[in-house]
């Protein structure tokens, strides 16, 4: 079992650009959540996808959008990048509410 995988590992963008991050959930998991973790802070919930629909959303602007595919993999898109978007972006998959399994994250640097 490969666990949760994310790509790319690192990414450098400039302000105003757009970025797409990808996530493949753990086998058997149908729910994918995305989190943003700034340096020295705990992860903050962005949104969650289940059955290809956004089920919950945290306090993030519309510049953050996502998608879930029929195979349960997911993408996170961020438009009009700001310096403050620099963070570790984490994907987590789960079969239910009692545990979420995280991927290694994508480190995004906005210059």
């Amino acid at each position: 079992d490969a666990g949760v995988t994310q790509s790319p590992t690192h990414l450098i963008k400039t302000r105003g650009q757009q970025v797409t991050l990808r996530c493949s959930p753990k086998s058997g998991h149908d729910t994918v959540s995305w989190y943003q973790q700034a340096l020295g802070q705990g992860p903050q919930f962005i949104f969650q996808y289940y059955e290809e629909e956004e089920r919950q959303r945290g306090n993030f602007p519309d510049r953050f959008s996502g998608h879930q595919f029929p195979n349960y993999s997911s993408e996170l898109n961020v438009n009009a990048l700001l310096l403050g978007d620099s963070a570790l972006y984490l994907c987590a998959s789960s079969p239910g509410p009692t545990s979420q399994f995280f991927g290694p994250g994508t480190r995004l640097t906005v210059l």
Partner: protein
Amino acid sequence: QKEVEQDPGPLSVPEGAIVSLNCTYSNSAFQYFMWYRQYSRKGPELLMYTYSSGNKEDGRFTAQVDKSSKYISLFIRDSQPSDSATYLCASPHNAGNMLTFGGGTRLMVKP
């Protein structure tokens, strides 16, 4: 006020010491509690989850929940240098899987 709070540390202990990591929470709706371990530049790894008040033990780790005081603890016995990491407590909102994290406590175990 943040819904889940942790002392950021760093907490430095000698190898073999008993470590106590603590969280407080303010949302009475929180029912489940998780502890995650995060090594530098890696994704969080689920260590333990608990539902009810009381203790739950897993090897060298013991999770303790006191819902009356909204206090969560993680104890690590016989701490090892490999335990050096950031420890995050989290709770899912009862509306779904959205996890609310504390800011994390950085632990350093010195040989």
